[in-house]
């Protein structure tokens, strides 16, 4: 099976052939994977070198002329380092584009904290009008990429990961999807968290919702699912900073007495290398860690 990042470069290269409005902007990362596309479309595959402020601003400038930029590098260098460029050179200018990140929160653990961006979604959540997709499988990444490329002048963030669920699920670029229903509470699994969540709640009487589009959050489905349980207890399991969506969930449930537990990546640095699996365990995001915290919260 290919990775989300491999799927992204392959599909984007094909989209460039079909849609003259699209342009890819790179800062060396993944440039080798776009070599063929660059030969076919030298004016629409742009590698600015290791210059991430310019990376994002170049996307903004392309959008000012009516093009739809697809801007790509690791999440830490796409959202965190040039955050003011994301804020001012797209939103403030009234333009849109597609930001596609790789690396996520812990995809290259041996690379250390400099290459981890657990805060990327929370940062973008301070800005207006960004749609945020977090696919859990390469097929979902492809579907959401196609959706984003065709989304007019929308501002879209597509967060790719090396972590994948074993099987893809249908995604529509909008809503939460109900995977199973129960009475004791609602567990929302975001993207690559799905398989671990399903393993964690095995035997628990809970509703499980699957989220690949987290902003805007599908508040109607969450409200409806929580209202159908005994106590409107909601657990969010996100592959980035814990609690990133707790406020959004709270707004969805504002008319309902409820509790929210936000699980995800902690603020404190692990200061460990190793593997993705080891980091998931270190963050308590492996099945046993999730099971213990979810069961404790629900009293199940």
């Amino acid at each position: 099976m290919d990775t989300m990042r491999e799927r992204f470069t392959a599909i984007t290269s094909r989209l460039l052939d079909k849609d003259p409005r699209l342009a890819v902007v790179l800062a060396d990362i993944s440039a080798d994977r776009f070599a063929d596309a660059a030969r076919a479309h030298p004016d629409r595959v742009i590698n600015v070198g290791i210059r991430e402020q310019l990376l994002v601003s170049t996307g903004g400038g392309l959008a000012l002329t009516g093009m739809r930029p697809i801007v790509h590098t690791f999440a830490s260098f796409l959202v965190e380092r040039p955050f003011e460029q994301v804020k001012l050179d797209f939103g403030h200018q009234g333009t849109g584009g597609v930001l596609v990140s790789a690396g996520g929160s812990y995809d290259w653990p041996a690379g250390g904290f400099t290459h981890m961006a657990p805060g990327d979604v929370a940062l973008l959540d301070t800005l207006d009008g960004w749609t945020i997709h977090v696919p859990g499988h390469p097929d979902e990444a492809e579907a959401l990429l196609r959706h984003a490329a065709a989304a007019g002048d929308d501002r879209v963030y597509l967060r790719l990961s090396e972590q994948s669920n074993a099987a893809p699920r249908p995604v529509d670029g909008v809503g939460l999807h109900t995977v199973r229903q129960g009475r004791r509470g609602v567990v929302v699994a975001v993207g690559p968290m799905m398989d671990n969540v399903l393993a964690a709640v095995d035997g628990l009487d809970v509703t499980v919702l699957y989220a690949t589009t987290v902003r805007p959050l599908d508040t109607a489905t969450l409200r409806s699912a929580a209202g159908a349980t005994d106590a409107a207890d909601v657990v969010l399991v996100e592959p980035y900073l814990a609690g990133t969506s707790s406020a959004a969930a709270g707004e969805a449930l504002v008319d309902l007495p409820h509790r929210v537990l936000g699980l995800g990546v902690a603020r404190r640095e692990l200061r460990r290398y190793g593997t993705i699996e080891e980091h998931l365990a270190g963050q308590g995001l492996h099945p046993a860690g999730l099971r213990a915290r979810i069961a404790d919260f629900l009293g199940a």
Partner: protein
Amino acid sequence: MNTTTLGTPPTTPSGYAALPGLMSLMTGDEKHDAAATSTLDALWVLYDRVLRVSPSEVDSPGRDRFLLSKGHGPMAYYAVLAAKGFLPVSTLPTFGAYDSPLGHHPDRMLVPGVEIGSGSLGHGLPLAVGAALGLRAQGLADSAVWVLIGDAELDEGSNHEAIAYAGAAGLARLHTLVIDNASATHGWPGGIASRFEAAGWSATTVDGRDHEALYAAYTQPHPDRPHAVVARVEPK
């Protein structure tokens, strides 16, 4: 008959002569200090004689683009836009008011003809790089992109990312106008133009009050590389 070393007068002297009056509608002052007018002559010559854009073409794909990156002190810019008909003179006295389109930093979403919202320094030139690339990719090879920055704004590292890349990429339709009023805290030893030249740009330095010299610098051929014009004005 006397001749002047400043060259021929602007093509529409009445328009240029109107600018101080237009500025005073915003400032309330009849006289403006050098800082308020540091960009005035450079902007006027650009809009009067070089840019291919008019109030009826602000959404035309093939127009020339002017990006004011140094967004603070925009009175001269608004005065030129008003003189050229991009915005009604009647809006000038609202400058800075809550419901005015004219802020102390311009906003492209509020003023027709304003190409970018600016204020935070170091965004205009990188955006201009993207705009030049976008026009090239769409075959709009005649459209020029101009960006105005200040010598102190050049402190921002984002500019140097853009200068280095634009030179390497040979973005021949990109132009940077640097208004140099010697306000950079640590100065630019060796000059500003040399920094552009080292990155592969064409660059020239002129008197920022001399309309004919500005025009000549603006229209200097640079077929295979981006072009920088450093316009020196009175030190801040």
